[in-house]
């Protein structure tokens, strides 16, 4: 056993650094959740205090559930996020497979073109996107959001997945070809299961900006029926008065679905890594 591994001081410093980072990262979330259970007065008087018998209040949650269609906003956010992730993973993986598997003219150029989107923020094209959506009558539909988010997520997905797909053994794909599997069967049944950890990584990277986005819902789908949760929470933020109880409660509620999705993907991610390690 190496000395470095057993040294308690070294391990202590590592844990200290990790612990400090965890505290910094979790603090805003913690503050949001704690304050969502307090009445308005104690939020401002003592924002760092845990809710006690005198300050405990569910008024924020009551407001959130009474005002507006919060369940509807949740469903909208979930629908948009899930459908977008699905499309990004499907099309991203297919493009990555084609780029890494087949030799054709302009292959490298095509790969470069597809990953160009990583460097150019999609928001620069907002005006053109809006004009397009108006022309096709897609304004105020969830389809508009799904289309935009799929386009936004694809470059990174193609980039990461094509790198991973290059590592899948050629022999395995060739064995499939000799056994009479179609190219689709090779893709779905041999290659995809092997790049699952990469798929999970891409899913996490894609999911969070979509769930948290305020820009496109505000511009493309601000109607009551298509509001997402981030846009729905804005109801409580006014120019002169902000209902902090309601805002904090809405945000606390909004954290959970994305946390659940993250946990699903991260378990895949860890499973993929460990199964690769012991081979």
């Amino acid at each position, binding site marked *: 056993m190496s000395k470095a591994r057993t040294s308690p001081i070294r391990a202590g410093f590592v844990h200290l650094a990790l612990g400090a980072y965890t505290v910094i990262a979790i603090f805003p979330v913690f503050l949001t959740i704690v304050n969502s259970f307090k009445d308005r007065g104690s939020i401002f008087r003592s924002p760092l205090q845990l809710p006690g018998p005198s300050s405990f209040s569910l008024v924020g949650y009551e407001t959130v559930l009474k005002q507006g269609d919060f369940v509807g906003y949740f469903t909208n956010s979930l629908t948009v996020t899930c459908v977008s992730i699905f499309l990004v993973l499907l099309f991203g993986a297919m493009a990555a497979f084609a780029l890494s598997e087949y030799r054709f003219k302009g292959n490298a150029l095509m790969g470069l073109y597809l990953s160009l989107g990583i460097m150019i923020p999609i928001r620069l094209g907002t005006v053109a996107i809006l004009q397009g959506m108006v022309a096709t009558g897609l304004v105020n539909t969830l389809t508009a959001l799904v289309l935009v988010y799929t386009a936004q997520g694809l470059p990174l997905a193609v980039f990461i997945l094509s790198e991973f797909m290059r590592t899948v053994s050629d*022999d*395995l794909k*060739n*064995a499939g070809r*000799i*056994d009479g*599997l179609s190219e689709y069967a090779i893709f779905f*049944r041999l290659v995809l299961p092997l790049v699952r950890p990469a798929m999970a990584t891409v899913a996490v990277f894609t999911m969070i900006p979509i769930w948290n986005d305020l820009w496109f819902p505000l511009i493309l789908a601000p109607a009551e029926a298509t509001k997402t949760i981030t846009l729905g929470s804005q109801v409580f933020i006014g120019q002169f008065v902000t209902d902090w109880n309601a805002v904090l409660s809405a945000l606390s509620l909004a954290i959970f679905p994305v946390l659940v999705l993250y946990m699903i993907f991260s378990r895949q991610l860890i499973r993929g890594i460990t199964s690769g390690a012991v081979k």
Partner: protein
Amino acid sequence: MGALQLQNIRKTFGAHEVLKGIDLDVKDGEFVIFVGPSGCGKSTLLRVIAGLEDASTGSIRIDGDEVATVPPAKRGIAMVFQSYALYPHLTVKDNMGLGLKQAGTEKAEIERRVAKASAMLSLEPYLARRPSELSGGQRQRVAIGRAIVREPKLFLFDEPLSNLDAALRVQTRLEIAKLHRELKATMIYVTHDQVEAMTLADKIVVLSAGAIEQVGSPMELYNRPANLFVAGFIGSPQMNFIEGGRLGESVATVGIRPEHISLSRDSGEWKGKAVHVEHLGADTIVYLETEAAGLVTVRLFGEHHVNPDDIVYATPDATQMHRFDAAGKAIR
């Protein structure tokens, strides 16, 4: 009609010509081995036969049918890969049966063939396991079983033993030889290991830089190499090549295998000093720096007590000398 006929197979990647016109006839039931150094095109040739790569020009006939445009699955071939290439998510049984299932074979027939192949390879206890639960040797047996159940016209092996350790390699080699006797199938086998080639093949095809150097039975290649390349490639340790002029011969190069030189303490044709001695138990390999012939390798059978710096005399067996002209071709 032969089981496989190749005519003028050429393959280019960009400007680089990997196969430079290969012509080959393989008879039914023959065990043919492609052997050559890395990058000589032997694996590419195998993939062209399998249909995993398209030849740039040329014709490939399997059992008399032209297959250049037929997809791999319909060529009546089966292939065993160096890295086993088992499907990680399927059990051993499903791994073996997948090809048949894809071809629409009846379930009972698949069962029968899988049972037969697994009995042949003693894989019965592992049928329900996944590849990750098997050892390297077992995995390679499954890969061979997957080839057997297809009952192909042609077996293709792509360096199947390279990933196994030495003991297992010998054992699996014996199994493949036994399999060839039992199935009487045509097999094509790629390797860079000349021992595998010599022990398994009915016919060896020596390739170098995308062209065939010589085709023949193992003993033909050993006894009558067609050129310097084959003479140097077949046999271990390598044949000694000596400039013809040094020995007073009119040919460009004279070759003599290490095992065809005898050694004596007191008299012989070439006087030399031992530079290095390797004791292998069954053999003793002596590297001699001689005045007449330069550095010569001598292989003696059994144990011999020669030490470095000893002065000894070497005598080549005149009947076993090979002579080559300036272009490297054997003179017969």
